[in-house]
């Protein structure tokens, strides 16, 4: 008398094993497809653009001759814009996150605000461009300056930073806060000395990824009307400038085929910049996380 019918078990096992393999392969395929797209993209960019990337390419202004064209004005412009975006979006974003997580009471209003922030994160970037054009460029009279573009980009990435910072603050264990209060610390002392230090890796990782997005965005800049033909470097935050994505966009539209390669070279420069920023984010995460 057998308690276990081996034949039936065997049959069902095979069925489940087959299912297992099928799903495993489907998911492997999904991963490979995503990787393949990335590899093809990289391959095309590198084969087309690598020949144009040189020290001169980083140091020259754009030109009507493809071999003399360079990204200097765009690179400096993009970095200058980042110097506006980083402090503005970090201060506002982390501030809002601290308020929402630590101070705000759970009411209908805060739920409403919370919902709107999440929705804002999904608003197409071109809408932020229109907002920037109306408010910063025209109403506040900033013109097509680094400041106007930087503030527009800050608004664009603010929801992402707030959500990331909230997640990070929320993941700080409650026991730490309670211990701090138990020692007689005030709320602000607790936030400053306990919560923020514990949350900082998460906040910075999210923020740097958001900043990378600000560097790569083109649509808001196009709507604001950032000029493309620029043969000078910005002299201050109110100076006109051009940005890397704008140059790439312009080159890709040129009639001469060589400019397609120049555009590819521009994309390579932009990608190296993005990879650099993302690796800083990864570095921070690995170095400072899991301390509790």
């Amino acid at each position, binding site marked *: 008398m057998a308690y276990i019918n081996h034949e039936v078990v065997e049959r069902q096992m095979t069925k489940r094993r087959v299912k297992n393999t099928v799903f495993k392969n489907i998911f492997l395929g999904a991963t490979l497809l995503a990787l393949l797209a990335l590899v093809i993209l990289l391959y095309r960019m590198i084969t087309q653009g690598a020949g144009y990337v040189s020290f001169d390419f980083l140091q020259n202004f754009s030109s009507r001759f493809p071999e003399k064209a360079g990204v200097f004005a765009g690179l400096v412009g993009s970095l200058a814009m980042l110097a506006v975006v980083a402090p503005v979006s970090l201060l506002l974003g982390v501030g809002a996150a601290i308020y929402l997580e630590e101070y705000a009471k759970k009411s209908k209003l805060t739920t409403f605000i919370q919902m709107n922030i999440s929705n804002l994160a999904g608003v197409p970037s071109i809408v932020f461009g229109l907002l920037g054009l109306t408010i910063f460029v025209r109403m506040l009279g900033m013109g097509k300056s680094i400041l106007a573009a930087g503030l527009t980009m800050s608004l664009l990435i603010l929801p992402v930073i707030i959500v990331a910072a909230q997640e990070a603050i929320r993941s700080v264990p409650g026991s730490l806060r309670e211990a701090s209060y138990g020692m007689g610390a005030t709320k602000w002392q607790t936030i400053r000395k306990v919560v923020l230090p514990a949350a900082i890796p998460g906040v910075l990782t999210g923020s740097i990824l958001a900043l990378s997005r600000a560097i790569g965005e083109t649509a808001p800049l196009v709507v604001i009307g950032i000029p493309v033909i620029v043969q*000078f470097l910005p002299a201050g935050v109110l100076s006109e400038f051009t940005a890397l994505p704008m140059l790439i966009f312009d080159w890709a539209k040129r009639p001469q085929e060589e400019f397609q390669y120049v555009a590819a070279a521009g994309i390579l420069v932009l990608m190296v910049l993005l990879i650099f920023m993302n690796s800083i984010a990864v570095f921070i995460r690995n170095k400072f996380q899991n301390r509790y």
Partner: protein
Amino acid sequence: MKKWKYLMVTSMATSALLLGACGADQKASNSSSETSTSAQSEEQLQGKVAGDGSSTVSPIMEAIVEEYAATQPKVQVSVGVSGTGGGFEKFINGETDFSNASRPVKEEEAAKLKEKGIDYTEFEIAYDGISIVVNKDNNWIEDVTVKELEEIWVDNGKKKKWSDINKDWPDEEIKFYSPGTDSGTYDYFVNDVLEEQQLDKSATLSEDDNVLVTGVESDKNAIGYFGFAYYEANKDKLKVVKIDGVEPTHDTIQSGDYTPLSRPLFVYANNKALEEPAMYNFMEYALENAGAMAESVGYVKSPDNVYEEDKKKLEEFKK
């Protein structure tokens, strides 16, 4: 604990340095420009000139700005590429000193400019010939009349076949590729060929002329149009159509034989801005070199007397 403090301090210091560097840059450049103007006071101007407008005109402008930057490094010229219509919108708003256009200013735009109290001067800087192109494998169309061209492109509410226009042409549907509605090329074509009738609604519109090139190149039944420079750069991939027996070439565009699709390209300058020495100097340089620069980027220069007239117009603003 110490680590994050260190991190915060470094990140703050870095951003402060970056911001500081921007500020310092400004001061440095200001003082250096002052010394350089006093050192070589002759003709070394400084100032800012902003323009925007047509993507057709932008290659010529880029060439001019590039050369100009070498002669007057302290005059900062920035030019955007928002299309003729988009450029005029900014010009009307008083945001730009000049606007590039691949068509004359429209009545409603002129009215708005008047309303805002902006006086402007029109300068013709070069010639372009809108080129009608078809696929390389298209062997039935060599030469069309303007009337046929209008019949092909006008919207008649249904899908058109080549055989609807001419019985000898194949019984296949025509695919249209046209520049976007924000471009002066579109406006010019609708105005001068279609006489303000609706362009076929099935047309693929794109602000990026390379999309049109690729579209026509890959479809046997396609027809498209765009500026001469784009045809020149893609000569081996496309077939150009003669209009009333005239092919668009450098000579036929310049002589005006290629009609009605030869068109002048313009720069509209704000009169008030022209009174600024930097802007005046830039426009003077632009008009002097427009012909040569236009030729170097694939356009056709206007007859010499056009530039002479332009210069006369400009000289009225000389102080």
